[in-house]
C-alpha cells in the first residue's frame, strides 16, 4: 500500500493566521511600557509581593486597565512564581486560571514585609527590589519598566521582559461600531452584548476608515470555512524570557523537532514559532514547530553551570519564539517569546541549579510519574484492528508459538458496536469476558479504546444520560456542541467539570461497562479533542464549558481532564480501589505524568519517523513525561522486515513499548517477517523483559527524584558541552546508553561514549566488550541483530534472564546482577520491588535495595528500612565485567562460592550465590 500522504499543512493555522499571535509577535516595543505603579508594591499578609502594573502608553486612555502583579516563592525549592492578572476584571468574564495541574501540596515561603523595603537603583534599569528565595536564589524585580531577573548561586539565570515584549490585553467591552457619519442610523446602534457579531463586523467592513478602533481579527476571526465569534475580544498575553549563559533549550513538547530546540527567528529561518495547541494531526511531518497532540508549556535550559527552566502555566493556544542572543556581558542567551491567546499570565521560574535539583523542583510543581503496574512496562501488541475473538486468540497463540513474550493485547475502535464506546460488536466479540479470561489465564491483559466523542444516538445510554444531565460541552449559542468523529455526529463531554468526570468514571464500573473484567485496561484516543469537521480538526474555540469558560481557555487541558477521568474510573471500578490503573492517552498537558502513559500519535512506518522517535520522546521526558513511547513500526504504511526489526530494537529501550498498525497496513505481528527478522525481533523483545527490573526501579526512582527515565546524555553528563544537543543516543536511567540504528542497511554506526573527563568505561551489553569514553565516537558494527547498548562502568543492573510468556510469570524468578565496574573498580545500583500491581507500595509495602561494589566487596543494603515487602527472589548469578584481577576465592559468610573468570573479557561470573535480595549480605572477592 502506498503510504498515506503527509499532513496537509494548510489545514492548520500558523501564527500569521491568528490575530493574537500577529499582534504580539509584531508588538511595537517602543510604544509599550508596563511599569509597577509607584507606591503600590506591598507584601500581603500571606507573604506575597504584590503591586499594580499599568501600560504607560495607554494608561490615560484606559485608566481602569490595571494589572495585579504577584510574586511568590515556592517553599523548599528554587522556584519563584510571577503571576499577573487583571485587577478590575469585567463582571461577565474572568480570565482563566489553570486548575488541577499544580500539586495541591505546593506551599509558599512568605516574603517578609522587609524584603521590599530596600529599593535599589540601577543606572540604566532604574529602581528594583531584591527578593531572596530558596537556596542561594534571588529574584530582582525592576519596577519601570517591569522586569524580573532570577539569579542562582550569584549567576543571572533567567530574565523576563528585558526585550519589553510584556503584553497584557486587558479585557474590554466591545467598542461601539463607529457611527457612519454620512448616514447615521439610530436603529443600528447596537448594544454591546447579545448583538449579532457578524452584523457588526459587516458594518465595520463597510467603514474601512474605522479599522483603527477595531483591529483585524480582534472581535471575530475566520479560518477556512470556520468562524470564531470571539465574544470577549482580544485578551492575549505575551512575555519575553531570556535564558542567560546557554546555547541549548529543550522541552515545550509536543513537536517533531530536535531535542535542542531550533531558533524560530533570525536570518534564513522559515519555520514559525513553536505552537502549543493540541491537535489531531494525520501523519505529522518531521522537524516542524507546528502543533501536535499534546502540550507542555515547560522549557528547560541547560549549560555547564546550571539547569533552569520556565513553566508557563496556560492552557490556551500558545506560541513560543526562540532566538539566539548575547547578554550585555557577552554571555550567549536563548531569547524566547511566549504568547498565549487568553488566560492569566502565570510563570514559574525554576533555577536548579543542578539537574537533580531542577527535576526535584519540577516534581514539586506537577508531580512525578504514577508508578505503572509492571505489565504496563512490558510489550504491548496493538493493531487497528484485531477483527474478532478468533483473531485475538490466533495472535495470542502466535506469540507463544514463536516464543515471543508479550503482556497486553489491544483492541481499537472496531471492537465497538458502531463506535459506541463501552459496547462490543456482538458478532465479532460475542464473549468479551471469556476472551479476556483466556488472556488472563496466561497472565495477560487486554486494552480497549474509549474515546471522548459520544455518538449522538438516543438509544445509546451514554448519550441519553449525558444529554439529560446536561454534561456536554455547549456551542456558542448554548446548545449541545455537535461535531463529526468516528461514530458520525457526536457530542463531547465537558470533562473540565468534576461532576462530569465523576460520572464518566462510574461508567467503567464492571456492571456498567458490560463485558469488561479486571484484566481490561483503557486507551484514550482523539482527546485533543478531535472533531473531524471542526476548525483544524478540533473544537470551536467559542464552544462553552461549565462556568462560562470558553473552549479557547481550556483547549490544551481537555485531553488531560479526559485522561484523568478515565483513570479515576479504572481505579474506582474495584471496590478496594487497589489496582493501579493503566490508561494510555494521546493528548496531554503538564502533570499528565501523574495520570498515565502517552504515545506520540500517528507516526509513519518510515526510517525518518523511527529516527525522530528519539528526540520526540526525549523532549517529552525532559518536560516531565516519562511513560511515553512511539508506535513500533509506525502507524501508517508497510515497514519492511529490517525497519520493523530496528524499530523493535529501539522500542525495547524506550519506556512505553507497543507495536501498532493502521487499518490499511498489512499485518505485521513480530513473526510475520520471517528469518532473520523474527529472531532479531524476538531477541529485542526478550531483552526488554530481562531489563524489566531496571525499568521498574527507574519508575520508582522517578517518584523520588523527578528525573526522567529515558534521559538525554546531558542529564547524566551535565558538564560535557559536546553532548548537549545529542539526541540520537540516550540513557535509560543512569546505567544504559542506547544508540538506535535508524537508517536502512546501516552496517555500522558511530557511538559517542560520554565521560571523557573521568575515563568513563562502557560495556557492550551483548559481548561485555569494554570501551572507554570517546567524544569523537567509536565505530561499531551493527548487523541486523545488533543495536548498540552499553552499560555504564560504575553501575549495577539487576536483570531477570529467564524468558517467560509474560511479565507476571517472571515474578518469582531469580535475578542476575550485572556489575559493570568503573576504571577504579567500583559500581553501585538499586533494585525496587513490590507486588507489581497494587497501591500497597504507597503504604510502605515495597522493597528498595542498594548494591554496592567497592574494595572487592559487593554489599546489599536496605535503602528503605521501614518498607515491608519481603520478596523471596534470590540472585542466581552475578556477572562482574571490567574486573582487572582474578580473585583467588569468593566468599559469603565465610562460605566459598563457585565462580569463573575470563581474563580476556575481564569477566567474573559467580555461580548460584542464591542470596535473597531482601537480606543484607556482602560477598568478598579475595
Amino acid at each position, binding site marked *: *500500500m*502506498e503510504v*498515506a500522504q503527509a499532513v496537509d499543512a494548510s489545514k492548520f493555522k500558523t501564527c500569521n493566521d491568528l490575530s493574537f499571535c500577529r499582534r504580539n509577535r509584531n508588538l511595537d516595543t517602543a510604544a509599550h511600557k508596563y511599569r509597577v505603579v509607584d507606591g503600590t508594591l506591598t507584601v500581603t499578609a500571606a507573604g506575597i509581593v504584590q503591586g499594580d502594573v499599568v501600560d504607560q502608553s495607554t494608561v490615560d486612555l484606559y485608566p481602569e486597565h490595571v494589572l495585579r502583579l504577584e510574586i511568590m516563592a515556592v517553599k523548599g525549592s528554587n522556584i519563584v512564581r510571577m503571576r499577573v492578572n487583571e485587577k478590575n476584571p469585567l463582571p461577565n468574564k474572568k480570565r482563566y486560571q489553570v486548575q488541577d495541574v499544580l500539586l495541591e501540596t505546593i506551599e509558599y515561603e512568605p516574603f517578609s514585609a522587609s524584603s521590599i523595603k530596600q529599593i535599589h537603583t540601577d543606572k540604566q534599569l532604574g529602581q528594583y527590589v531584591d527578593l531572596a528565595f530558596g537556596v542561594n536564589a534571588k529574584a530582582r524585580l525592576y519596577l519601570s519598566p517591569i522586569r524580573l531577573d532570577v539569579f542562582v548561586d550569584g549567576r543571572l539565570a533567567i530574565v523576563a521582559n528585558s526585550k519589553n515584549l510584556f503584553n497584557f490585553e486587558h479585557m474590554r467591552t466591545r467598542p461601539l461600531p463607529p457611527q457612519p457619519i454620512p448616514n447615521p442610523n439610530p436603529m443600528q446602534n447596537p448594544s454591546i452584548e447579545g448583538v449579532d457579531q457578524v452584523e457588526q463586523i459587516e458594518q465595520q467592513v463597510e467603514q474601512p476608515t474605522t479599522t483603527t478602533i477595531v483591529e483585524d481579527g480582534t472581535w471575530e476571526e475566520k479560518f477556512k470555512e470556520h468562524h470564531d465569534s470571539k465574544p470577549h475580544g482580544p485578551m492575549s498575553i505575551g512575555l519575553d524570557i531570556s535564558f542567560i549563559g546557554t546555547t541549548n533549550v529543550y522541552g515545550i513538547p509536543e513537536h517533531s523537532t530536535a531535542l535542542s530546540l531550533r531558533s524560530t527567528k533570525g536570518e534564513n529561518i522559515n519555520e514559525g514559532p513553536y505552537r502549543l495547541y493540541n491537535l489531531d494531526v494525520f501523519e505529522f511531518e518531521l522537524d516542524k514547530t507546528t502543533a501536535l497532540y499534546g502540550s507542555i508549556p515547560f522549557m528547560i535550559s541547560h549549560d555547564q553551570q546550571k539547569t533552569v527552566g520556565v513553566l508557563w502555566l496556560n492552557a490556551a493556544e500558545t506560541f513560543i519564539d526562540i532566538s539566539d542572543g548575547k547578554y550585555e556581558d557577552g554571555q550567549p542567551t536563548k531569547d524566547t517569546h511566549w504568547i498565549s491567546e487568553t488566560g492569566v499570565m502565570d510563570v514559574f521560574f525554576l533555577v536548579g541549579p543542578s539537574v537533580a535539583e531542577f527535576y526535584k523542583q519540577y516534581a514539586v510543581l506537577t508531580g512525578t510519574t504514577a508508578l505503572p503496574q509492571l505489565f504496563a512496562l512490558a510489550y504491548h501488541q496493538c493493531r487497528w484492528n484485531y*477483527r474478532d475473538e*478468533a*483473531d485475538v486468540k490466533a495472535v495470542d497463540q502466535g506469540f507463544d508459538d514463536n*516464543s515471543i513474550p508479550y503482556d497486553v493485547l489491544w483492541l481499537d475502535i472496531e471492537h465497538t458496536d458502531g463506535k459506541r464506546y463501552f459496547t462490543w460488536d456482538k*458478532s465479532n466479540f460475542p464473549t468479551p469476558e471469556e476472551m479476556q479470561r483466556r488472556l488472563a*489465564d*496466561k*497472565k495477560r491483559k487486554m486494552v480497549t479504546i474509549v474515546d471522548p466523542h459520544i455518538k449522538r444516538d438516543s438509544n445509546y445510554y451514554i448519550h441519553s444520560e449525558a444529554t439529560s444531565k446536561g454534561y456536554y460541552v455547549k456551542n456558542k449559542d448554548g446548545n449541545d456542541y455537535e461535531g463529526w468523529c468516528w461514530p458520525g455526529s457526536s457530542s463531547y463531554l465537558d470533562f473540565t467539570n468534576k461532576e462530569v468526570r465523576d460520572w464518566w468514571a462510574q461508567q467503567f464500573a464492571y456492571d456498567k461497562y458490560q463485558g469488561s473484567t479486571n484484566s481490561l485496561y483503557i486507551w484514550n484516543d482523539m482527546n485533543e479533542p478531535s472533531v473531524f469537521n471542526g476548525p483544524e480538526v478540533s473544537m470551536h474555540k467559542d464552544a462553552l464549558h461549565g462556568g462560562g469558560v470558553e473552549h479557547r481557555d481550556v483547549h490544551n487541558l481537555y485531553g488531560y481532564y479526559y485522561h484523568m477521568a478515565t483513570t479515576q474510573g479504572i481505579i474506582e471500578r474495584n471496590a478496594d480501589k487497589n489496582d493501579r490503573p493503566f490508561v494510555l492517552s494521546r493528548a496531554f498537558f503538564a502533570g499528565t505524568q501523574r495520570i498515565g502513559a502517552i504515545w506520540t500519535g500517528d507516526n509513519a512506518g518510515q526510517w525518518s519517523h523511527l529516527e525522530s522517535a528519539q528526540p520526540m520522546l526525549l523532549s517529552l521526558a525532559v518536560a516531565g513525561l516519562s511513560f511515553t513511547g512511539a508506535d513500533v513500526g509506525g502507524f501508517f504504511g508497510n515497514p519492511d522486515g529490517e525497519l520493523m526489526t530496528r524499530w523493535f530494537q529501539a522500542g525495547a529501550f524506550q519506556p512505553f513499548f507497543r507495536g501498532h498498525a493502521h*487499518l*490499511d*497496513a*498489512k*499485518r505485521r505481528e513480530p513473526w510475520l517477517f520471517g528469518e532473520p527478522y523474527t529472531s532479531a525481533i524476538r531477541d529485542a523483545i*526478550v531483552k526488554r523483559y530481562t531489563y524489566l527490573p531496571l525499568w521498574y526501579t527507574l519508575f520508582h526512582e522517578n517518584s523520588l527524584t523527578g528525573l526522567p527515565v529515558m534521559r538525554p546524555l546531558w542529564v547524566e553528563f551535565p558538564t560535557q558541552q559536546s553532548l548537549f544537543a545529542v539526541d540520537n543516543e540516550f540513557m535509560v536511567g543512569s546505567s544504559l546508553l542506547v544508540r538506535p540504528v535508524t537508517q536502512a542497511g546501516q552496517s555500522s554506526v558511530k557511538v559517542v561514549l560520554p565521560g571523557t573527563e573521568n575515563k568513563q568505561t562502557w560495556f557492550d551489553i551483548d559481548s561485555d566488550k569494554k570501551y572507554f569514553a570517546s567524544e569523537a565516537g567509536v565505530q561499531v558494527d551493527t548487523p541486523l541483530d545488533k543495536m548498540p547498548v552499553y552499560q555504564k562502568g560504575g553501575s549495577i543492573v539487576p536483570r531477570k*534472564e*529467564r*524468558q*517467560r*510468556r509474560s511479565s*507476571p*510469570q517472571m*515474578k*518469582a*524468578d*531469580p535475578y542476575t546482577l550485572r556489575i559493570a565496574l568503573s576504571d577504579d573498580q567500583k559500581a553501585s545500583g538499586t533494585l525496587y520491588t513490590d507486588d507489581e500491581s497494587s497501591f500497597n507500595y504507597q503504604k510502605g509495602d515495597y522493597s528498595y535495595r542498594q548494591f554496592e561494589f567497592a574494595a572487592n566487596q559487593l554489599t546489599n543494603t536496605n535503602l528503605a528500612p521501614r518498607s515491608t515487602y519481603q520478596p523471596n527472589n*534470590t540472585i*542466581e*548469578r552475578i556477572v562482574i565485567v571490567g574486573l582487572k584481577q582474578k580473585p583467588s576465592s569468593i566468599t*559469603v*559468610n565465610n*562460605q566459598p562460592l563457585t565462580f569463573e573468570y575470563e581474563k580476556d573479557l575481564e569477566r567474573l561470573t559467580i*555461580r*548460584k*550465590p*542464591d*542470596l*535473597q535480595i531482601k*537480606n543484607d*549480605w556482602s560477598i568478598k572477592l579475595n
Partner: protein
Amino acid sequence: MKLLFSLFIIIVAFIAVSQCTKDSGNNNKNKLSPQFGVPPEKLEYYKGETFTCFGSGKTIPIDYVNDDYCDCPDGSDEPGTSACSNGQFYCKNKGYKGQLISSILVNDGICDCCDGSDEQSGLIKCQDSCAELSKEMRKAREEAIQKYTTGLKIKEEMINEAVEILKTKKEELEKSRKEHEPLKQTIKELEVAKEALEAKKKEREEQLEAERKLKEQIERQQNETEQAANGDTQDKTAQPEETNTNNRTIYFWCRWRNWNDTKCYQPKPKEPEDPQLEETKNGKIHHRRHLHFIYTHLIIFCFYYFLFCLKIVKATLLDTLQEMVSAAVDVISQYLPQSKISELSKIEEIDRELREKNRQLRDNIEQTEKLEKLLITDMGPDNVFLPLYGRCFDAPTKDYTYTMCPFENSKQGHTSLGRFEEWGPNHSSMSFTNGVQCWGGPKRSLKVQVECGSENKIYDVQEPSKCEYSMKFSTPALCDKEHLLVLQLEDDHQF
C-alpha cells in the same frame, strides 16, 4: 535470669545462623533428580557421575544437572527447571502422551503438562487432566480416522474420475488441434473469394461513377443550351430551377431504383405544352414512393428491432448486431437492382461466413490453449485435484458469499478476489492474485489453506490484512494414507 538471657542469646544466634544457611543453601531444599524432565530416549545421558552438554561438549558434575542454574549454553543441563530459556522439559503425562515443552513454561504458574509436572515449584497446584485429555484425544483421533477413511475413499473416486477427465480432455485437445488447420484453410479461401468479389464490385462502381460523370456533363451541356435558347426573362429563369429540382429527384430515385430507366441517363426533352402538370405529377408520384419507401423501412426496422430486443436476451450483443445488420442488408437488397443484389449478398454471405469461421478459429485457439494449460497445471499426484476443475465452492458469511473455483478464480459476492496463481508447497495452499483494486490498498488477493477433509468445501473466510483474504478448503484430495496409518497405529498403541 542469667540463664534465661543466655538461652535467649543462643536462640537468636541459632535463628540468625539458620537464616544464613537458608540463604546459601536454598538449592538443597528441593533437589531434583538429574533425570527429571528428560525424555525417555535421552535418559541414559543423565545417569553418570558427570554430564556433558549436548551442544558444547562442556562437562559438569552431575550435581549441576537440574540444580536450577544454567551451565550448558544449549540448556541441556536443566531439563527439569526454567534456568535455561532454550531448554526443553519432558512431561510424562501418564495416561495421555508424553510431550516436550519449552523450559520457558516450567515453573511459571501456568499448568502446561496435563500431569502438572511442569509446575513442581509450587506456584500453582495443577489438576491431572491426562485421562480426560486422553479421552478427548481418542475421540478426536476416531473422528480423524473417520475423516481420513471417508476422505480416502472419495479421493480414490476422484483419482478414477481424474483418469476419465484427463482422457476426455486429451481427446478434446486433439480434436481441437485437428480442427485448427482446416479452419484456417477455409478462412483463407473465403478471403480470396471475397477479395475477388470486392474487386469486381469496385470495378463496377468505378464504371458507374464514370457514367454518372458523363450524365452530369450531358445535363450541364443541355442546360447551357436551354439557357442560351430561352434568354434572360423572368418566367424563363424559373424553368431551369424546376428542371434542376426534377433532375435531382430523378437522380436520387435512379440511384435507388433503376439505373436502367431511360429517364436516368436519357432525359427526354421537356414537354413544352404542359410543364407544370408534368412537374406536379412527377412530384406526387415521387412523394408517394418516398413515403412508401420510408414506411416499409420503418416497419421492417421496428420488426427487426423487436427481434433484436428478443435476441438480446438470448444471444450476445455482437452476434445479434451482426445478424441484424446482415438481415437489414437482406431487406435493403430487395430494393436494389437484381445484379446488385446478387453481388452484394454474395459479399455479405462470404462476410458472414468469414465471421463465423473466424469465431470458430478464435474459439478453437482458446479451447486449445485452455486445454494445454489445464494439462500442464499441477493437479497433484494422480491428478487428484483434476475433478475440482470447473467446479466452484461457496461459503456464505454474514456480509457476503465467497466463491472459490479451484484453478480459476475467486470472488467475494461479485468482486474478484483474484485469479488462480499457484500452489503452495505440497499442495497445502493455493493463492489467487490480481483481484479488484482496493481503495487505498492493494489489489485483492486470497490465500486458500488446503487440508484433508471428508468432503470438498470452503470455510473460515478471513481478511487478516486489508483486502488480503484467507479461507480454508477441505478436500479428500489432500488426505493421505500414511497419515491414516499413523492415526490407526496410535489408536492401537494407547498408553
